[in-house]
């Protein structure tokens, strides 16, 4: 019962945060909404006995990604007038919500059609994760590092201020 109420609160936080994220005009408020949702997700992980995941979520997602985004927002110091004005935002939201309904329905129906119950399992601790990572999941784990490297190189390439002023076209 306690779990359900925790779940409800977290779910409410997450849904509220994400709705705020997509509907808020202010980018920073959106980012806060997102942060709330991410933290909620971490809570959910904990609720699902994935402690390590929850930790990682807090550390990576919340700590790194969200903070990074906020930093970026602040870095580029976007003024309000440079932010997009989206007069038809809600119209779009409604239209796309209608469009997304079959997909949501499909996803939910599919998911709920198979599994009805949780099975008993031990808490996914860092030890379990570490064991798995270095046994079963070693290849993805290895190439994730390459992915991160690639992303880094890519990010450097993209974000680097080009010192040349060649204006020729592609």
């Amino acid at each position, binding site marked *: 019962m306690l779990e359900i109420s925790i779940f409800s609160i977290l779910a409410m936080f997450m849904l509220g945060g994400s709705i705020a994220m997509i509907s808020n005009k202010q980018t920073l408020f959106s980012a806060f909404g997102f942060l709330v949702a991410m933290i909620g997700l971490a809570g959910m992980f904990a609720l699902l006995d994935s402690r390590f995941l929850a930790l990682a979520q807090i550390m990576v997602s919340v700590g790194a990604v969200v903070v990074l985004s906020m930093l970026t927002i602040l870095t580029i110091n976007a003024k309000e007038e440079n932010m*997009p004005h989206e007069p038809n935002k809600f119209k779009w939201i409604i239209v796309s919500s209608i469009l997304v309904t079959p997909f949501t329905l499909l996803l939910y129906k599919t998911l709920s059609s198979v599994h009805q119950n949780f099975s008993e399992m031990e808490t996914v601790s860092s030890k379990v*994760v570490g064991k798995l990572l270095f046994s*079963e999941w070693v290849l993805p784990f290895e190439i994730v590092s390459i992915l991160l490297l690639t992303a880094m190189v890519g990010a450097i390439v993209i974000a680097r201020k080009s010192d040349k002023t060649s204006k020729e076209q592609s």
Partner: protein
Amino acid sequence: MTPDMFFLLTSLLFSIGLVGLISRRNLFVVYMSIELMLSSVNLLLATFSKVLGDASGSVIALLIIAVIAAEAAIFLAMIVHIYRENRTIDSDDFDKLKEGNSNA
């Protein structure tokens, strides 16, 4: 607490992410929507992990978190670059490549 609730939550989060992605012009929000979608997949994986009693789901989710980080890096770099060049992060402002504008 049944998996059903988590599934519902996942579906909703994913759909909200999708809606945000489509309906918003602010590239930051677009980026966050994508992250939200990925995170909801993570939630799903964690749920499955518990449903199946198999820690692999959590490991996959962990890997996905790494992917999220990678995407974040490149996305944010892109946003910074685009903002620096164009002074805007409104995705609708980028339509030079539209059909009939092939002199761009």
